[in-house]
């Protein structure tokens, strides 16, 4: 490689404010720094391993000093459930929560979990990603991602506090080898335009990446999940499906009989019969608390 950056260090930035101050307040916790460049120091210590590529799964063998189960990565589920979703009419569920039947290749199905939506404890406790990824483990199924048989079925069920909502997509097709060239890589020749199947595989990989990152956001904070779901609900809202109807629809799919008018939320005048059919009032007011009390909308 010819375009190395000149390693010669220039004048450097202005001195840091803390360089003028004294050192720490007690015995030094570390061995004194070794003079020399970083690469020389590391090589002298015998720990250098240039250019090592580590697959994330390889590190699971390292000691988990906490003795605490670590949640599976979203993208690992493709191994656990590889191919499982193929042509199936059932939803798979990693956490042992109930699922509803799916619809063939549509893969859209609702799954539900019982509470704990915003609590991270829900998957810390060893239950796996169960509820959140409920119906759709096959989203990450082998059929969808790089399989040479194709016909995979994806679905992603999302449970929220008793209400199931399905979002899914079906896709399939024979796979093939695909390369993953970095379009921004300044080195290397421009590649050939990709063929149809390669493009398709890339799109599918994009789906996997997409859900992986959504899952990571959920991992970092349930509020992100809330936002994602709000966006999804708004989408449904715009398409004319109001919350109540949507809920009823999902309940019907789940086989739960709803009694919409049994418990009325107290109206402004405390009278029955003056209820305005609105998005929130429909299924017994139970949806008011779906997002928790302090979640901004």
């Amino acid at each position: 490689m010819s375009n190395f950056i000149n390693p010669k260090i220039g004048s450097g930035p202005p001195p840091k404010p803390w360089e003028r101050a004294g050192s720490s307040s007690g015995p030094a916790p570390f061995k004194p720094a070794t003079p020399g460049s970083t690469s020389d120091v590391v090589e002298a210590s015998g720990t250098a391993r240039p250019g090592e590529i580590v697959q994330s799964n390889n590190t699971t063998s390292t000691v988990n000093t906490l003795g605490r189960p670590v949640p599976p990565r979203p993208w690992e589920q493709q191994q656990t459930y590889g191919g499982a979703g193929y042509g199936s009419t059932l939803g798979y569920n990693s956490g042992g929560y109930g699922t509803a039947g799916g619809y063939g290749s549509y893969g859209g199905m609702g799954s539900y979990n019982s509470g704990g939506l915003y609590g991270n404890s829900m998957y810390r406790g060893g239950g796996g990603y169960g509820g959140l990824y409920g119906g759709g483990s096959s989203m990450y199924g082998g059929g969808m991602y790089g399989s040479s048989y194709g016909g995979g079925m994806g679905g992603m069920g999302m449970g929220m506090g008793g209400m199931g909502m399905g979002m899914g997509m079906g896709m399939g097709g024979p796979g093939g080898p695909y390369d993953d060239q970095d379009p921004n890589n300044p080195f290397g020749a421009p590649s050939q335009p990709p063929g149809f199947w390669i493009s398709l595989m890339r799109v599918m990989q994009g789906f996997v990446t997409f859900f992986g990152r959504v899952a990571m956001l959920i991992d970092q904070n349930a509020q992100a999940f809330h936002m994602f779901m709000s966006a999804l609900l708004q989408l449904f809202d715009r398409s004319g499906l109001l919350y109540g109807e949507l809920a009823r629809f999902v309940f019907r799919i789940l086989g739960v009989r709803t009694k919409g008018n049994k418990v009325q939320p107290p109206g402004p005048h405390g009278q029955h019969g003056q209820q305005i059919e609105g998005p929130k009032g429909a299924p017994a007011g139970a949806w008011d608390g779906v997002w928790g009390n302090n979640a901004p909308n």
Partner: protein
Amino acid sequence: MPAFKTPFNGYAVKFSPFYEQRLAVATAQNFGILGNGRIHVIDLSPAGPIAEIAAYDTADGVYDVSWSESHDSLLVAAVADGSVKLYDLSLPPTSNPVRSLSEHTRETHSVDYNAVRRDSFLSSSWDDTIKLWTIDRPTSVRTFKEHAYCVYSAAWNPRHADVFASASGDCTARIWDVREPGSTMILPAHEFEILSCDWSKYDDAVIATSSVDKSIKVWDVRNYRVPVAVLNGHGYAVRKVKFSPHRASVIASCSYDMTVCLWDYMVEDSLIGRYDHHTEFAVGVDMSVLVEGLLASTGWDEFAYVWQHGTDPKAP
């Protein structure tokens, strides 16, 4: 000071260690979930709008950025496709990135430049590893693989050339010495995922960690069984934590509760400032090394703000 509008969602903001008016902002399209990324280099002017000096597009979101401590025009970026890219502002856009280092097998989530030895930087990734790079080599010098889950952040000790800390989703923060084969300390710092860590600039044994449990904890690595301080006040996960370069006990943090907070962990009422200027998650915060009290933040509301502590970030 005026805000800078970015076309994508902000992910990180960093002051240049060379020029007090210069910043870099890392952004990602569609909240970093899918789409492109862009790095903006901006200059503040005393009166007038923020000027954009350069912008670099990437094929995937940019999660973090770090200025070189050795070359005033060099930037390191953590890209969501797993690569680490180097940009040189002194070269024409067509020559950038000057380097694309692809070794991580998952998203790269943070980069940090060594401010003591000034010839190396760290990258941490969702592939559970941290990699050490030097600017004169096309491959990493070594890989630190001990964490059992994504490593969200790695930060050099500002007073020790060989020591750094890492924060991971496996609920531990680890202290590393690049000369040792494994980590030298494991801090089971939080019950939930740890998203960020940073060292005190004035005490080389003090480290702060921030977590999904909404708290920031300050630790002395010489006695890490109990935290020195626990800072509660954020309403959601604390995304980034940063020690002040000027005040030994001052910490800045930003959170998914959309606020940027300033803390003094030595005093009882430790929350000394709260800024709620962001209208979406605040995910990037930095404090200027060259101007005391100057803060910068960015968030998913596609704005980068620069302001003096005590003033309104939104004030024109």
